[in-house]
């Protein structure tokens, strides 16, 4: 199981980081597109429909691209007050069930998003000459990455069950695998998993 966790970490960490960086780059693109629209209207009295549509697509991609990093960093808001009051064993069991359910819902949506992408093959973007399938494709990709992160969390929790201690809880996904500080640019803050 240790090997599986190490393997998942090797895959998830760079995927999550790459997704976050790509999301940041898309954010810069969105700003440029929104500003170009204002300038075009003010200077040339012309509305850039493609800029608005492209900015929307970039927004969707940006949100889905950063999702694996956010899940791995524990950045999604949760109410921990009740769960934290549980005894350690029960807390681990609950966390395993919750993460398994996350893997399940992401899997269910991966299957459904195949249909979404298929439908996208028949829809062309309203102001640009490409199929919407290219935009929709980010949904299954992101959800599949979320499944991998969820699986890593579950395996870490199972490992934590076998080896008691506060530090194991940190490594098990109850506390983020990637420290929040990393989001603020301090890349070395991830906890030691030795």
């Amino acid at each position, binding site marked *: 199981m240790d090997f599986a966790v190490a393997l998942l970490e090797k895959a998830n960490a760079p995927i999550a980081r790459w997704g*976050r*960086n790509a*999301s*940041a*780059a*898309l*954010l*810069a693109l*969105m*700003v440029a597109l*929104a*500003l170009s*629209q*204002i300038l075009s209207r*003010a200077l040339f009295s012309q509305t850039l429909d493609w800029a*608005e549509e492209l*900015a*929307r697509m970039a*927004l*969707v991609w*940006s*949100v*889905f*691209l*950063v*999702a694996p*990093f*956010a*899940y791995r*960093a524990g*950045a*999604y*808001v*949760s*109410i*921990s*007050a*009740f*769960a*934290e009051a549980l005894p350690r064993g029960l807390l681990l069991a*609950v*966390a395993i*069930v*919750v993460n398994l*359910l*996350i893997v*399940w*819902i992401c899997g*269910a*949506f991966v299957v*459904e*998003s195949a*249909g*979404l992408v298929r439908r996208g093959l028949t829809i062309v973007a309203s102001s640009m000459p490409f199929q919407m399938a290219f935009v*929709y494709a980010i*949904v299954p990709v992101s959800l599949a990455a979320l499944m991998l992160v969820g699986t890593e969390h579950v395996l870490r929790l199972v490992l934590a069950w076998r080896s008691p201690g506060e530090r194991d809880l940190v490594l098990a996904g109850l506390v983020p695998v990637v420290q929040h500080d990393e*989001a*603020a*640019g301090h890349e070395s803050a991830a906890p030691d998993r030795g």
Partner: protein
Amino acid sequence: MSPRRRTGADVSAAFFWLFVLLLALGAPVVFALLIGPGLSLLIDGQERYFPALLARFYNGVDSFPLLAVPFFILAGELMNSGGITHAIVRFSQSLVGHVRGGLAQVNVMSSMLFAGISGSAVADASAIGKMLIPSMVRNGYRRDFAAAVTAAAAVIGPIIPPSGIMILYGFVMNVSVGALFAGGVVPGLLIGLGLMGMVRLLAVRYDLPVASRRATWRERGVALRGASLALLMPVILLGGMLSGLFTATEASAVAVAYALIVARFVLKTVDGREIARILQATALQSGVILMLVGAAVTLGWLVTVSGMARDIANAMVAVTDNPYLLLFLVNMLLFLVGMFLDAGPAILILGPVLAPIFTELGVHPVHFALIMCVNLTVGLATPPMGLVLFVASSVSGERLERIVRAILPFLLVEVIVIFLITYFPALTLTLPRWLGLI
């Protein structure tokens, strides 16, 4: 609201109870919003609705107005990194630093001014707290008091425009964001002035020191010039929106451009590396919020098709059809929810359920929106799950329970303002009406 109840769409209300259970078990809100409906549909044998669920989730994110969320966060981060906070605090100090409890007054006033830039209580608490709490402690303030003032004042951030949560509310409930922004000005000022009044009362009781000698008008002018770049931002944004030069979403892009020019080229306080860090942090923050928007849209859809919204409306009206009493009850409910849930998710979940009920009873949509936004924002400073309290605790190094005790008088002021805006709609509606936004 019985889980067994079925509607024409054959969808039970089990999704809601599953959602609540998952929340209590510590599941991230975004996933609880998706798993609850997903499991419920599975239990009901209604998997055929899965594609609709996914489509709502996607469409919830795919919206041009939502660009304002990352843009306003980005503008606030750029301004904050650009050393703008220092200029705002210096300006506030020149105005009110000489009175008893001056640094606490500076803290509140800085929050009011900073609110015109950031639109986020957490950013406000972090930026102002890091600067002022250590100075307050050095000047003889109790650490818990300094942290409590910071936390209480920070909630003004999302009330005075621009405001992240008002953009979310406007998007989900189809209410004019411009009107919400204008409606937030008076409640924000009332909270700020109320907090300053409370500081004045406590200053006598705790014998708080004055921060500095009274500044001359010349010194105030110099401080104003230093802060003018920051103070100009809300003027440009509101002016642009009101003159029709740009929409609320485009205003957020203008805010980013303005903040970037000020921080990079005028103040020269951020470099390329810092900008990249800010972009990464903003992408993460906004990604988290917008994923939540998408998930909340799916829950909102199920609330409608399951007939739950109608059931809740009927149950509420069965208690009383007096809108004033109902508004009192809903304020209690929102305050309770705000104690456990962040303002954004709470608005996304409860807005679609509650707002139609009160609109039907004759409460103006902008008025109700402001009640919700202000109430849930105050919830950010209430235990046990007050995000702003956590930030104040982390920044000050003070224990949470001590801050909670010290913040009570300030919370009283904020609760009074909530009831004032609830029962005097003119406080929230007059400015939007004057500006022709409603």
